[in-house]
């Protein structure tokens, strides 16, 4: 995840192809206030207190267009331009509550809110309130945007190491930093796993043979950083002594569930909240094998 310089707002608005693709009118809804664009430098002007979640990914800018119609809910279209399809996918996984719909490379609709991703773009289209007409326009706008994006993007390579078998639907999250981990799952009040913009994290929940477990697969830039994070997790979370060349067995915690960590090169496989040790062992072994290819 690198930090890329973005051009100023005027240049983005003038050149952004997805803006050109959007209609000026849809079923009586017309463009309202002027189109806006916010970059990494001024995202807080748009969402004060919320921009951090986007900045935790390689967010470039967000294009915002409002559609209004008398006696109808306004509809706001937000197109988030990321620098990679992996991070567009990651932002999409931030909140997956809603019904899956067939649009782009993954889409969810809920009560007047459509979210989807395709290539390097994540899109949110939200009506003030849901009506059948507003929903139809939302889907129409979404379809228009999807058609204007010519190619699909790759999902994060890390995700491909996760077993499909037992994966709980819509539980997968992909991110980089502590702020995202904290938004989904609280591990500690300090950065135990040494997460940073350079780390890649896939988190998911599994059910195997009727027992649940939570997985965190973390990829570090180097083996040394993975070893260090391994030690931090063992000593600060499992509360066991860590020797860099040794393995620490899974541990039954206060809630009766199992937690454990294994390292494979620059990857850490962390399984927590495993209702049975057998699920932890299965996840660890399966992912280790996938990583070793």
């Amino acid at each position, binding site marked *: 995840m690198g930090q890329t310089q973005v051009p100023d707002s005027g240049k983005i608005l003038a050149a952004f192809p997805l803006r050109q693709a959007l209609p000026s009118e849809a079923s009586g809804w017309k463009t309202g206030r002027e189109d806006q664009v916010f970059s990494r430098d001024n995202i807080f002007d748009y969402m004060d*207190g*919320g921009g951090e979640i986007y900045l935790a990914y390689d967010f470039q800018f967000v294009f915002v267009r409002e559609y209004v119609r008398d006696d109808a809910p306004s509809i706001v279209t937000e197109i988030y331009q990321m620098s990679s399809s992996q991070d567009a996918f990651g932002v999409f996984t931030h909140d997956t*509550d809603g019904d899956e719909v067939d649009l782009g490379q993954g889409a969810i609709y809920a009560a007047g*809110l459509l979210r989807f991703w395709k290539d390097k773009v994540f899109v949110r289209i939200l009506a003030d309130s849901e009506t059948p007409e507003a929903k139809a326009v939302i889907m129409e706008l979404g379809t228009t945007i999807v058609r204007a994006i010519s190619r699909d993007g790759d999902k994060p390579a890390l995700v491909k190491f996760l077993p499909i078998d037992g994966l709980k639907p819509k539980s997968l999250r992909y991110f980089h930093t502590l702020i995202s981990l*904290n*938004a989904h799952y609280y591990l500690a009040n*300090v950065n135990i796993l040494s997460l940073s913009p350079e780390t890649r994290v896939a988190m998911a929940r599994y059910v195997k043979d009727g027992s649940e477990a939570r997985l965190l697969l973390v990829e570090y830039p180097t083996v040394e950083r993975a070893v260090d994070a391994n030690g931090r997790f063992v000593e600060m979370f499992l509360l066991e*002594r860590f020797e860099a060349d040794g393995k620490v067995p899974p541990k039954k915690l*206060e809630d009766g569930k199992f937690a454990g960590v294994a390292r494979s090169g620059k990857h850490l496989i962390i399984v927590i909240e495993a209702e049975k040790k057998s699920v932890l062992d299965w996840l660890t072994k399966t992912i280790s094998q996938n990583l070793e290819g």
Partner: protein
Amino acid sequence: MKKRRAGKTVTRRDFIKGAAMGTLGMALYGKGRPVFAGAKAGAVPFAAENPQSVVVLIRNVKAIGAGDKVDAAVVQDMIDTAVKQFSGEADAAKAWAKYVRADDTVGVKFTRCDWMRVHTDQAVIDAVVKRVGEAGVVPDKIYAQDGGLPIAKCTALINVPSVKVHTLTGIAVSMKNYINFAPAPSKYHSPSTNLGEIFLMPDVKGKTRLIVVDILRPYFGPGPQINPLHRWNYYGIMVSNDPVAVESVCLNICQAKRNLFKGEAWPITPPPEFIAAADKTYKLGTSDPTKIRLIKLGWDKDILI
């Protein structure tokens, strides 16, 4: 190799054991529902030497109608009833006169968040402003604002927040509502532990006379942006003068709603450590349910607390 666990490290295991954030931590991790109603005293200002607080929660299903339209008259009545109960006065004017004087300059600090859309409802703001005016404060000495409220000019503040679970602070009610009084608000976002120190800034300290919480349509989702599935009609107004007690009660309500929504434990994350710090470090109020007298009025279906 030397062990790395530092003394101040708090992990999820501490919450599971019930050893972190006291009863607040227990609420998040399902270690038992708190029993409010500990305080027996009336609604006196919170004092460290007498750490007891009163929170009045009133609900009315008629407050929100079709299309989630808020009924301003019903809201006015709810606020009046709650403030009368809180003050111990039978008359709304006498009740408000306990909190604002004609010679005050009053800041009505509400929550306006265009992108998030979980605002303090205009009906709530209008009801508060109306009563402040009727207490004798002239209109040009009432500043009903979110950003840009001239805090230094104000001799009194009415804290009028909405209620939402927040990606960075855990929950955002009366304490986070003051975040833009700070010169660098983002300093209090992640971690939010020191949010309470804003209440001790010279221009803020001691000015909050009353807290009127809009808990008509709170938000319980992960945010930061709204997912309409995560907003529900709770039909409530809450009145107190203890921001810590207010956060504690709202935290319990939102946590209960999250668990109901998912059908399993869905702890608010990150844990709002600022609530415990506001209690223990900044001594702004109490988060201990045994010291909070929660008075529940009106409709009690799905009250969650």
